[in-house]
């Protein structure tokens, strides 16, 4: 992954190219979680600065940079929402058949496919994924919110993710 290699070498120009390519991935996730443009902008800064400070946190051989940045953005947004310190480092973010998704067209195709998969999903299942991922509710909180048994919530999350995966399996 050339861009990350250049960032590793301290190339600031590479960082601005990276921003141009991926800000539209990082920012919307933060905005969706935080529902606040200023806070989402802070997360956007944090996520890119984190990559600038420690490019080795991302292992290019093991996944898609776009997906990695999107997941980091989600995690940092939830941390902010809950006012807690970040804990987990993630290195890998492998999308079945995925590339680094730096290309807008390629990304648009993929996003279309994801949205399609979500639309095909049972609404209850989709809701649980939304609560767990974008609202950062724990399984217990989701069970309270939806009135479903904890076991059902866990199953819904797992099978929801599996459905998403299946859509992309070759």
């Amino acid at each position, binding site marked *: 992954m050339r861009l990350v290699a250049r960032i*590793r070498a*301290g190339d600031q120009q590479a*960082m*601005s190219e990276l*921003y141009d390519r991926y*800000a*539209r*991935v*990082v*920012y*919307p*996730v933060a*905005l*969706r979680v935080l529902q606040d443009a200023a806070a989402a*902008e802070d997360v*956007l*800064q944090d996520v*890119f*600065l984190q990559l*600038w*400070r*420690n490019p*080795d946190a991302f292992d*290019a*051989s*093991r*996944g*898609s940079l*776009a*997906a990695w940045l*999107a*997941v980091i953005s*989600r995690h940092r947004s*939830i*941390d902010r929402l809950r006012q807690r310190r970040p*804990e*987990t480092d993630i290195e*890998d*973010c*492998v*999308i*079945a058949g*995925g590339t680094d*998704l730096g290309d807008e067209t390629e*990304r648009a195709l*993929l*996003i279309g496919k*994801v*949205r399609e998969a*979500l639309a095909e999903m049972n609404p209850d299942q989709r809701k649980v994924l939304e609560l767990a*991922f*974008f609202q*950062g509710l*724990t*399984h217990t909180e989701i069970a309270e919110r939806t009135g479903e048994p904890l076991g059902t919530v*866990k199953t819904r999350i*797992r099978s929801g*993710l599996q459905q*998403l*995966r299946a859509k992309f399996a070759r």
Partner: protein
Amino acid sequence: MKTHEQIADDLVLYALDELRGADCQELQEHLETCSSCRRELQQLRGDLGLLALSSSGPQPPARSRERLLRSIATEPRGVSLPQAAPRRSLWAALVPAFAALGLLLIAVLLTRNNTHLRDQLAELGNRNQDQSVQLARLNQELRLLTSPDAVHVSLTPQKAPKQPSGTAIFSPSQKRMMFMASNLAPVPEGRAYELWIIPASGAPIAAGVFKPDEHGNAMMMDHRMPEGVEAKAFAITVEKEEGSDKPTSPIVLMGAVG
């Protein structure tokens, strides 16, 4: 012991960054030994990546770009290079081979710690070869140094009396140390030299006893450094043969770290 089902649930929570405390630690330990769970975690993160990408769309405000570029321009590079081992002072009459040996050790340690290796797979092969050569050379030197018939010759100004000297080499990350000395005076029957680590705070810590050979040379190879001790200096004194808990005689040699 958790069931397969519980581990699968924990993996989802972990990927969601929601697993905390003992469960989190337990899962991390499990991940170290279970490749199928590592694969599943990687997949789950990919799934979450897809989910995250589904919300792509809104553009961040234009000022955001400027703000980021300003920040990185003022930030020092955060490349996580391995920390160099602290420099250690060497005694004046140090045998040059010892210093070379130390540098060689550090070079090998640094190379092994290099976090960029994964990105330089092509280079890795060559480097490994270099390392093997270096290690082979290092082994050869160690064999020479530890050989019972090795003759140590210290060169000093002609009329000056031979001064005792010593060298301690240690690596905080490896928690190992070695010590070498030359021109030591013989010790009386029942007595031996004892090496002390002098920590930044607290009493000296005993680090082994040794007797010099008939030429006054001595060497302690591959000793463990005590846990959690930040060595400020090393010293040797003459103590009873089995070693003392604390130094009881004047310091024969001493050297500060760094």
